[in-house]
Every structure is written in C-alpha cells, then in structure tokens.
C-alpha cells in the first residue's frame, strides 16, 4: 500500500503543471468556501455580541401576555417585576440584571418627525448588564433629558443641547407628548441603538407612561453558551413569564445568515464541480498516457486492484493537496479580515435600517473557524477519490497485451 502510494505521488509530480492547475482550481474553491463561511460566522458573532451587549443581554423576561404588536397594552407591563427579581435572587448563574421600559414613539424636531424606540433605563443597574456607557460619544444621560443614537441625531439634525419632542401613548392608551433636551449622543456598533433609539431614565419613563411596571427584565448570566440549560432553570423559577434567550432573539439574522451560507455553498459546489471535472480529465489523460506503463506493471504482476488503488491514490493526493493549499490560502485571506475587517458602513446603509439582517455597523470582521476547514478536507478527498474512480476503473479494464502494444 505504502509503495503504491509512493508511486502515485511520483506520478503526480511527473505532470507538475497539469497537477498544479487542477489542484489550484480546487484550492481557490476551498479557500473561498472557508473564507465565506468564516466571514459569515464573524458577522454572526459580532451580531450576537451587539444583541447581547446593547439589546437583550443573555435573557429577556417579559410578561407572559407580552405582544409586540400592542406596545401600549397594559398586559405588556410587569407591575410585579420586583417579585420576579426577588424570585431570581440567589440563582447561581445570574451575574446581574436590570429593568427596562421599551415603547415606540415619534421623535419630532419641530420640522420633521421619525419613528423611534424609547428605552427607559436605570443607569446604575443597566451598566452591570449592558455596555452602553462605553459608547457614549458626547454628553451623558442627565435627569429629565434624553440620549439618542448618533445616526438618529444626524438624520433629525439634532445636537447635544437641542430639544426634541417625543410623542407616544401612555399605558392606558392616551396620547402624550413631552419635550426633552438632548444631553447625550451614543454611537454603538449596534444598528438598532444607533439608528432609532432614544434613551431616557427609567423613573421618567414610568412617569410618562403612567405605570409602575416595566416591560422587561434583562439578565446577564455567567455563560452565554449555556442558554438552553439556563432557560429551563429560569422557566422553572418563574413559570408565568415569557423568557427569551439571546439565541431566540437572534433568529432573524440567523435565518438570513443560513440562507447566505447556502448561497455561498452553491457557488463553492459549482467551483468544486469544475475542479472535479478537471480531476477526471487529468486522470483520464494520465491513464491514456500511462497505458504502456500500466501494461508493464500488469506484466510484472500488479493486480487490477493495485492499479485501481494507484489511480485512486492520485485523486486522493490531489484532493488532500488541493484542500491543504486551499486552507493555507483561506488562512491568508481570512487573516486580513480577522485583523482588519471590512468597513460595511456604506454597504449596510444601502440596505437601510435592515442592515442585511445583521446587527453590525462599521467594521465587520471575520472569525477563525475550524469546521469549514475540516469539512473542506473531507469533501475534497471524498470528491477527488470519487472523481478518480472512473478513470481508475478504465485503467483496470485494459488488457496487459493491449497496453503493451500501445505506441507512445
């Protein structure tokens, strides 16, 4: 076996240019696949971080009857949230928690108006769960004032010190409009925060909405990856509440990223099919060119099985070399995108507030992912072996005497 393998290796080296060309096609396909997969994983990872750090933390607890489509319904408010907090006290995996009120409103600068999301926060408690303070670009959230996302501020032509009107419905359904001074501008990598959010103090939000409740409790745990286990535990402790993990709340962009991965796979499969046709062609050429050698080997006592193995090894070697080179190429390509990333601002803006489903602004970075590398080696070797089987089988069908008669 070792001997047949070394013969195959020597045969591959014999036709250097042809071999290099074949495995280069394979390598580029593999490199693109790994990079694409890693980049999409990177986008997902950044989106998860932004969702967790700015919007939901690891878990969001809401009223059981919470209905996003009826934002001012009384059922959306948890008036007994202090009891919930007490019930969760002592839960070993909870690191911190905070309460928030979220409600939709209309932001008016007296010339123009735009829809926004108002979030009432308890600043002291909030910073234990979210990292908003690190991204305050200008000013701060002062009592009686509002802090707004940078893009929202820009689109409404509002600066620190300007006044805005926020129009909304109270918890009981009455319209209300309040005037607030903008005391801070926040610029975060989370597009939701940046594009359409107005932060106010929680006590003021309660006052404006005329409620004692909050719309959600955000919980930070000691390990975000144990979300399944922790969700079960939380549901046991507080069975009458709606509990969503960060993964539950990321379903939108996860679905989009799955679709993107599928699309990139189709592209990669196409490249791999071209490469495999190349391998079949290379191997068929090789069988024809080595017809006389095959005859000699058969005369010397090589069995059909030996000949089959020899050609299949050639295919497998091309597959392994192609995937290894592809992995090296992908590492070089991916390194740049992991270290420097790519500024997606302009591209994302082109997609409006949707941001292609991703929760990213600015530099999008790739990540290191072993799975596509392992996948590519497996796919490549299996596909190359499969591609070389037909030419190899043709070689075994040749009668030694016919091969020896071949003029080369």
């Amino acid at each position: 076996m070792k001997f047949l393998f070394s013969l195959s290796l020597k045969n591959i080296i014999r036709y250097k240019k042809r071999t290099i060309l074949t495995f280069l096609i394979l390598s580029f396909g593999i490199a693109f696949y790994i990079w694409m997969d890693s980049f999409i994983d990177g986008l997902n990872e950044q989106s998860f971080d932004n969702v967790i750090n700015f919007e939901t933390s690891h878990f969001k607890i809401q009223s059981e009857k919470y209905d996003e489509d009826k934002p001012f319904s009384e059922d959306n408010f948890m008036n007994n949230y202090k009891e919930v907090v007490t019930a969760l006290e002592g839960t070993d995996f909870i690191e911190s928690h905070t309460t928030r009120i979220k409600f939709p409103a209309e932001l008016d600068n007296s010339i123009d108006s735009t829809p926004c999301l108002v979030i009432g926060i308890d600043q002291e408690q909030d910073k234990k769960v979210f990292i908003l303070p690190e991204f305050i670009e200008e000013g701060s959230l002062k009592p009686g004032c509002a802090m707004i996302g940078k893009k929202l501020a820009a689109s409404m032509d509002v600066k620190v010190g300007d006044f805005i009107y926020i129009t909304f419905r109270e918890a009981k359904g009455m319209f209300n409009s309040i005037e607030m001074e903008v005391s801070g501008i926040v610029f975060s990598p989370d597009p939701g925060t940046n594009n359409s959010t107005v932060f106010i103090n929680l006590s003021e939000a309660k006052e404006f909405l005329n409620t004692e409740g909050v719309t959600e409790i955000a919980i930070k745990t000691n390990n975000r990856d144990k979300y399944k286990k922790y969700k079960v535990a939380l549901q046991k402790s507080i069975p009458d509440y709606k509990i969503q993990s960060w993964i539950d709340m990321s379903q939108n962009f996860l679905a989009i990223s799955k679709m993107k991965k599928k699309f990139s796979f189709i592209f990669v499969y196409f490249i791999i099919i071209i490469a495999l046709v190349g391998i079949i062609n290379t191997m068929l050429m090789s069988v024809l060119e080595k017809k006389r050698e095959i005859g000699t080997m058969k005369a010397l006592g090589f069995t059909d099985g030996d000949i089959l193995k020899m050609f299949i090894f050639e295919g497998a070697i091309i597959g392994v070399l192609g995937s290894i080179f592809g992995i090296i190429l992908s590492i070089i390509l991916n390194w740049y995108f992991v270290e420097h990333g790519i500024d997606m601002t302009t591209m994302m803006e082109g997609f409006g507030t949707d941001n292609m489903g991703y929760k990213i602004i600015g530099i999008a970075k790739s990540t290191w992912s072993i799975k596509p590398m392992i996948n590519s080696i497996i796919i490549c070797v299996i596909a190359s072996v499969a591609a070389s089987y037909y030419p190899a089988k043709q070689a075994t069908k040749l009668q030694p005497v016919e091969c020896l008669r071949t003029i080369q």
Partner: protein
Amino acid sequence: MFLEVTDINKTYYAGKVPFQALHDITLDITKGEFTALAGPSGSGKTTLLNIIGCIDKPDNGEVFIDGELLTEKNSDELAFYRREHFGFIFQTYNLIPILTAFENVELPLRILKQYSKSQSKDMVMQILKKVGLEGLENRKPLELSGGQQQRVSIARALVKNPKLILADEPTANLDLETGETIVDLMKGMNDEDNVTFIFSTHDELILKHAKRVIRLRDGRVIN
C-alpha cells in the same frame, strides 16, 4: 517437462477482419533452456511469448508450467503467478520513467513483498553490478543509453530469480554490438543461474547465441 504448450490457436481481429496469429502451436521446453523463437515480422513470435507469459489468452489450447495449468487461471491469479514466477524483457525496455534504475529493478521485489528493505537493496545492487550498471543506479531511464536501459530491464527480470524469463526482441532497438552484449549477458545468466530463457528475434546474428531455435512462420512452428 518444465513448459508445455499444446494446440494453441490465436486469432486477432482488425475491425471485423480476422487474422490468425497462431495455428495449433505445440512445443515443450525443459528447465534451463536458452531458447530463441525466430521468424520474420508477423510470424507470431510475440503472440506466442505473450501467451506463454500469461499476458494474453489463447482462443484454445493449454499452457502448463511445472505441471500447473495456467490457461484456466483468472486475471488476479495470473497476476500473482507472473509476479512470482516470470520475468519480462521488452523490445522497448518498458522501464517506468519516474523511477530510477534502482527503483525499476526493485519494483518486482516491492510487489512480491517477500523481502525486507535491506534484503531487497542487497539483491538489487547485486544484480545491477552483474549487468554492469554499478554507479548508475540513481539515474532515471531517460538518463541512460538504450543498451543501459535494456540492462536495467534484464536486471528487473532477473532480480527475483524467476522460473522463466521471456524476452521479446530484446536486441531489436540496439546496434549489433550492444545487442550481442545483451544476449551474451542473458546467456551468461542462463549458464550461471540455470534460469530458463525464451527470447524472440528475427536477427540471424543474434540467433547464433541461442542453444535452441524454434522457427515460426505464419503462426506455425516450422522446425
């Protein structure tokens, strides 16, 4: 009797046109013979050698070696038989171009799997020395002359001490002097090691080295 060939017939087809290459060939060869198959081109020498060497099948008839019927063996059994008992020398040498002289000679031993690496090395070096190629073992076929390539081919055929060596026009691509040297070399090995040789040639000058000559014409033995 070492080799018995009985009633061998072989017909080839050029498209739909049949051409009978061998007609009722029957012959015996004893162990240690140095036999030449002689005849003009198209007389059936190569076909007969190929059938004796089990790389071609007769339409009918039988080939026995040491009493073992070879014509009924399947493809794998024949491959194993050739691996163990036959050595081939071809007119065009048929060396594997990616392998060095050493590796080409080592090839039959590698597939035979009966010798350790060091044993193989000793056997290969010994036979290369015997055919006068000492010092050229690392050269690839293209770096050797025709005569040297044929020596490598002879060494490859002899290295595993086969029962029978079949040489198809071993001197046809060589000048007369080199051809005679090659036949002398084969004959020397036949004398020293009692290896049975059957070789084909149409060169009368080469024939004088043979101990026995079987003449063929139009696919029939004529002597």
